[in-house]
């Protein structure tokens, strides 16, 4: 039995230690907000926070998580940066199909938590691992800046 701390709750899952967190979240715990996109860490749709840092859950064996807190899109709104980002995302109307946006929001929230006033190169560095097929990138950049400016 693997014991995980997810969004402030303790969750137990009877899964193999090498199973990526993504599938534990989606298939076992029913937290489907975290998305599967590529399975090889190329698209960022599965981004969660591990101890506050962004991590690709499709490549993260649950056995390696230990005591570190996991935050998913379902819980990130409880953090200051996450709430700001979600609000800015709607304010700028970033979202189209929305499938990649859980991962985009998680990456952006982690960026703002560590770098409260990111410049364009900070945004490029933090967000270039998150693909968006609908092409919402310009609005993602605007929304991050708006979130950073909000109090």
């Amino acid at each position, binding site marked *: 039995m693997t014991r995980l701390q997810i969004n402030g709750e303790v969750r137990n899952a009877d899964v193999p230690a090498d199973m990526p967190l993504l599938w534990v979240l989606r298939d076992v715990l029913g937290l489907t907000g*975290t998305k599967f996109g590529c399975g090889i860490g190329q698209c960022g749709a599965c981004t969660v926070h591990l101890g506050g840092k962004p991590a690709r859950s499709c490549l993260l064996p649950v056995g390696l998580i230990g005591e570190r807190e996991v935050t998913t899109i379902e819980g990130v709104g409880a953090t200051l940066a996450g709430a700001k980002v979600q609000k800015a995302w709607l304010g700028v109307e970033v979202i189209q*199909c929305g499938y990649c946006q859980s991962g985009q929001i998680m990456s952006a929230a982690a960026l703002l938590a560590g770098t409260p006033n990111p410049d364009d190169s900070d945004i490029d560095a933090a967000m270039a691992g998150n693909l968006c097929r609908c092409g919402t990138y*310009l609005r993602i950049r605007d929304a991050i800046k708006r979130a950073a400016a909000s109090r």
Partner: protein
Amino acid sequence: MEIIPARSIVPGEVADPSRREILKAGLAAGGALLLGFHVPLGEGRATQSHTSTHEFAPNAFIRIDRQGQITLIMPQVEMGQGVYTSVPMILAEELDAAFDQVALEAAPPNDALYGNPVFHIQVTGNSNSIRAFWIPLRKAGAGARVMLVEAAAQMWGVDPAGCRTNNSEVFHEASGRRLPYAALVDRAAKLTPPQDAPLKSVADFKLIGKPLKRLDTPDKAKGTALYGIDMLPEGVKFATLAACPVFGGRVGHVDDRVAKIIPGVRQIVVLDDLVAVVGDHTWAAKQGLDALNITWSEGPNARVTQADVWNQIRAASQREGVVAKTLGDAEKGLAQGDRMDADYELPFLAHAPMEPMNCTVHVRPDACEVWVGSQVVSRAQAIAAKVTGLPLEKVIVHNQLIGGGFGRRLEVDGVEKSARIAKEVDSPVKVVWSREEDVQHDLYRPVYHDRMTATLSSGRIVGWRHRIAGSAVIARWLPPAFQHGIDIDAVDSAVDMPYDIPNLRVEYVRDEPPAVPTGFWRGVGPNNNVFAIESFMDELAKKAGRDPIEFRRSMLDKTPRLKAALELVAGKAGWGRPLPPRNGRGVAVQPSFGSYIATVAEVEVDRSGEVSVRRIVTAVDTGIVVNPDTVVAQLQGGLIFGLTAAFYGEVTIDRGRIQQSNFHDYRMLRIDEVPAIEVHIIQSGEAPGGIGETGVTASLPAVRNAIFAATGIPLRRMPIDRDVLAERKSV
């Protein structure tokens, strides 16, 4: 909110079905005014040479309940294009409804309601939603408003002419009385719906034209929105699959000794052409699949390579095609003046929406349930019925949000495969494609080869021949629409090209590529034709010694909306202002999807052939704009989608297999590669045009022409070849 099966909500039969009837009304279970109306979806092309029956068959419904909630039940699906907001806006406008009381539900498949199941297809595609709903939904909304006013007037014993409506209420000015729609539904439901309620004039619009917030995005930002891939019906198992890597190949032998002892693996399903592993979770299924030792019977396609594809289509393009359009005397026109020939090519492309292919199916002896995000929900139902042998009405399809469609969800191959797998499984099963499987078993944007010939006299084009060679996707997807050997999609934007040319011929040569299945891809036929035409126009302008914008402008008198867009974009882009060396601006115009768009791209090309797009400016006349923010978003996104194709988009086949597999070798544009994009909307009173695909069509030729301006190198195919731009290779 529960969806009432569409058939049960049309009360009674129409005693005298009138060809003119557009609106049907009644009282729904639970107390709600219910209105049914018909939206001609997917008919435009199919009925060009056919007449469909005119029996009234509603395919969209409005329900106004006793709480005042107004629900539009519509057959269109949301896949990011914003129709779950913009379409209800049209209804709320004519109904004078409070927009926050308007909700939307996806209709269940209801082909049974259609007069002609061949032509009336429940489809979301071809940038069609706003165009299809514009008039029918306004008429329905206006009719409903008249009924609610009439109901209030009856209750008050006053003349309806003295009543007005606003924000979901009816007001009687003289007496100061008011009633919310919620209080009027029972009485209104007993009235005969008007068939000719007057529509608002554009000047009276309160919602249309305002940048309203989308209704679908708050749940998406919280991670609570559900896509097809998120379905978890009670008792669901998880599966993933491998189809034969060679198109058309079959399963030979499967050694499952290792796979079946992996913890969590429950079942191995071996079918003719694919193998699936079912497990307690996707991880077990994937590990099980990886552990299988499968010998494929690859079949004859195992010899097909990309060179075969190109050789075949290039040979096909040498043949005379079926004439799709002729003006004047093309032969005579091509015999005078300075002649120029150029061939253009586009590659295969996969759709690669961010949500990989998936479908959840539960097959029971007496019924089948399907959970999927589909652009063609009635086809999803039909294929599941065919696979299971169940009657149509025993197949329930729950359509879901789509995590990117781009044409991929116009196909039901995923539903078909999933239903075949589910037939072998005793529980609901969610089948999820790996990204590799998704990329390697798509129905691809076809390769195209366009042969362009034109003659110039006194700086103007006097003769024009455009021969398009490519797959006829229409012939497979909608056979009745494939008439006289012409794929109306493959020639779209070529037969209606915007320039004044006295002698013109457009030909189409159908060429189905070996092995590789083809399908619609965002931007469809116009992607190819606008790329070929606008690339060629730049080469002709250069030959004529004329400025690319001036050259085009002088031939756009018969297309004034496009001419105006071109003039606007020239100013906004600073056309003609000096640029540093190896920088250039390129222009492209298009009359596609009922929208008139002119686009200027600005690029820099370095000595190693790397291209940086600095800026894109686009001017659009898409008629009346329902939600301007959505129009801007669709153009931004479409342009970026096109840039991905220009920079990285190419799928190739070798030994019958697709060579690309995931985002490392089928790349997408990333945030650090995206240029500034400006969208300028032209005010217009014309009917709305389509917008979802237009940006894709615009960006390839604009960027290509900017590269031409920066380097003098006329690229003749996409994606951009850095070796050519670095002059390591010739065009």
